[in-house]
């Protein structure tokens, strides 16, 4: 990182074999005679005002991931350097196949990348080569930044063996037998080398030279489609962002149509000038292929953020990714054309979800249990799937009216309002299993005028374990007409000698 000219030299320290040693240092520290692997006390003796920081792998990783996220402005295929030997090699791989022409060729891309990283305060060593292995070696041990197509083997042969991403112990033992450069082993017979140093050596050599293909694993899943706009002058106003989103949405409609797909999950990436990347996600209940609706969903999403979207010095790249798309049924769309699609139920659910958060727009799902509070749950509508609503409806219809809901006589046995937690009451009731006569709930005394019950609901021993108590539910009406659903917790004399009473619901 760049620092003020007067700032003291910066080093990063870590404990290596019970000694605090320097594992990274900046140019000023180097100029003052500090070396790598020097113990901190020696370095302090050289430079008393050394600014030293203990290594923090977690934060390094987090920062690297952020940089990787930012690098997606060049290509969707950005991977962390995941070689086990390279734990402290904070490197990134980018596969720029087919992307370089967007920035004026390979030279243009690499200089743009370097300038932008430097503007953010990072010094990066960059190299572009045919294979990840060769690029890795050249970035660390070579001089050239762009290796012409097919010239990578030639370029890396004079480099040190460390450039092959080998464990340090292996490099040391190879060095002891006089093999110091990649060129030394490239010409040797393979079998004896593999037998002596393991197959890993040959694999790494082949990966660097291109004999074996090496795939990098991108951090983020690659979007099915994406469109982007770059700006010479960064955007800061919400209206401008909204306009750009509209234009981007227009841009993905045609490719979606060509593929017969509709958007289910869209992601808007806003690349800020200083390297920060904001991501906004919207999900839809059914495949969507209407630019106006997509723009509106993102507008709701941005509005829902209030002021959390910090434009800072502005966004210079905005990209719209189709993270997930599903087949779009044109016939279905035509059928829906009777209603204005804009105002349909699904569009409403999408808009609400985009603004308020998906988890706040829910539908009931029913479970097969008699314990009232477990018999239902709420699921975000967006997670119920495209045909989930229909399927769910069929499933629910079977469960909607469990046999106990309605008596043959048409008497309602389940309340309309259920309390999240049953509320403890003071009650006067007949023992052993009579209905309550008087009770006090939320500080108000009630006298019972009529009651029905008990309806016994046994505990689920397979869930609650031994000793869980049976509930006897009563429907109770007081003298003013309030109807309650309450239960006695535990069978008198068998499960407890002093059963507690709980209020659990209200009837209409």
């Amino acid at each position, binding site marked *: 990182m760049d620092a003020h000219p007067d700032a003291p030299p910066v080093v990063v320290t870590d404990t290596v074999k019970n000694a605090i040693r320097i594992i990274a240092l900046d140019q000023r520290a180097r100029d003052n005679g500090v070396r790598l692997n020097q113990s901190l006390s020696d370095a302090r003796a050289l430079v008393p005002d050394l600014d030293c920081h203990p290594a923090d792998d977690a934060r390094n990783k987090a920062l690297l991931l952020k940089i990787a996220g930012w690098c997606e402005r060049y290509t969707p295929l950005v991977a962390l350097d995941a070689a086990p030997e390279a734990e402290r090699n904070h490197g990134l791989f980018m596969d720029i196949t087919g992307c370089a022409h967007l920035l004026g060729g390979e030279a243009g891309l690499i200089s743009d990348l370097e300038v932008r990283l430097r503007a953010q305060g990072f010094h990066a060593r960059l190299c572009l080569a045919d294979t990840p292995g060769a690029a890795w070696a050249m970035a660390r041990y070579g001089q050239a930044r762009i290796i012409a197509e097919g010239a990578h083997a030639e370029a890396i042969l004079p480099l040190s063996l460390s450039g092959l991403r080998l464990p340090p112990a292996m490099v040391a033992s190879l060095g002891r037998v006089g093999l110091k450069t990649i060129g030394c082993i490239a010409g040797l017979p393979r079998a004896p080398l593999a037998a002596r140093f393991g197959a890993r050596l040959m694999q790494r050599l082949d990966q660097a030279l291109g004999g074996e293909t090496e795939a990098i694993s991108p951090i983020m899943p690659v979007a099915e489609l994406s469109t982007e706009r770059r700006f010479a002058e960064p955007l800061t106003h919400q209206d401008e962002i909204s306009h750009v989103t509209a234009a981007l949405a227009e841009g993905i409609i045609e490719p979606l149509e060509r593929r017969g797909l509709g958007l289910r999950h869209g992601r808007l990436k806003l690349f800020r000038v200083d390297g920060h990347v904001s991501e906004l996600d919207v999900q839809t209940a059914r495949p969507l292929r209407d630019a106006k609706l997509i723009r509106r969903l993102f507008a709701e999403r941005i509005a829902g953020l209030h002021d959390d979207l910090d434009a800072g010095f502005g966004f210079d790249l905005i990209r719209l990714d189709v993270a997930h798309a599903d087949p779009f049924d044109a016939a279905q769309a035509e059928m829906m054309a009777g*209603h*204005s699609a804009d*105002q*349909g*139920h*699904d*569009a*409403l659910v999408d*808009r*609400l979800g985009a*603004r*308020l*958060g998906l988890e*706040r*727009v*829910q*539908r*009931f799902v029913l479970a097969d249990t008699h314990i009232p509070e477990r*018999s*239902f749950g*709420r699921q975000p509508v967006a997670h119920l799937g495209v045909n989930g*609503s229909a399927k769910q*409806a069929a499933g*629910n*219809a079977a469960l*909607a*009216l469990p046999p106990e*809901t*309605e008596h043959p006589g*048409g*008497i*309602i046995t*389940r*309340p*309309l*309002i*259920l*309390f*999240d*937690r049953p509320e403890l009451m003071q009650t006067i009731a007949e023992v052993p299993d009579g209905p309550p006569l008087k009770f006090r709930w939320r500080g*108000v*005394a*009630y*006298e019972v*005028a*009529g*009651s*029905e019950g008990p309806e016994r609901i046994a505990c689920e021993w397979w869930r609650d374990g031994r000793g869980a108590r049976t509930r006897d539910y009563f*429907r*109770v*009406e007081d*003298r*003013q*007409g*309030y*109807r309650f659903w309450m239960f006695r917790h535990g069978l008198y004399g068998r499960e407890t000698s002093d059963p507690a009473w709980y209020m659990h*619901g*209200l*009837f*209409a």
Partner: protein
Amino acid sequence: MSLSRLQTATDILEARTRVYEAQAYKAHRGMALGSEERSSPLTLGASAVDHCLEGGLACGGLHELRSPLARDIGAATGFALGLAARAMAADRGGRGIVWVTDPATRVDGGGLFPAGLGQYGLDPSCLTMVEPGDLQGAMWAADEAAGCTGLAALIFQIKGNPARFDMTATRRLMLRARQSGVLALTLRQSGEEEASAAATRWRVNTEMSGADDDLERGVGAMRLSLTLERNRAGRTGQWLLAWNPKDRSFDHAAPNPHARANPPAHSLDRLPVSADRRNPSGKMGQVLDHRQDFGRAS
């Protein structure tokens, strides 16, 4: 300014006016077409109430239901669901009910129990529950839902009389519901009377259920004491209704002769428990606590 330039300006003005008029006419026509299909009023099923409402509740419009006490919410919810179920059954092209709740209503800890929806003939999956994090979000969600033609009914549950949900907010809801033809209901839990743009305002009290012949001392079907406190289009009134789960309609009910025959020994004043009501009016005959020391108060 020369005469010709003035002439041009007038021409432009005229042309603009014509465009605006055309737009307004189009908007009006579109509105009329939209509401025409769904303009038939929603009947309750109880003849006297429907007669008083001159046919029924205006479907595209806002109606306010309030329950004076926190524990009356059961009755008010029942009434709201009954209306929504009838709106669904009337099949006006709406495919569901959206239920928006203000988070303040969750403080009392009650939530809708899907197993209880059976008596209204409602499938739990036709309900979309929206629970925003604050009242502002809830009002926005209600606005959006009221403007959605794909809905049969919107139920917006709020607690008390929050200052933010004012005349402007209710008028907006009313207008959007009128355009879309959605039956919009605000369910005001322990709320006071308040000026609003709603077409009608109902007070819902629970009423003692009728004696059930099959069950001695049993609990019968829901009964509501409904008071139409305000009706923009006509008269007001008070009725005793019962929900009929078989026909899914409201019926007139006879009062229970035993109801309140012997009032509870230690009766309590029915104090409304509203969250943040403004300027609560004192009740007639209520004993107020006057301050004795006016002189010393600073």
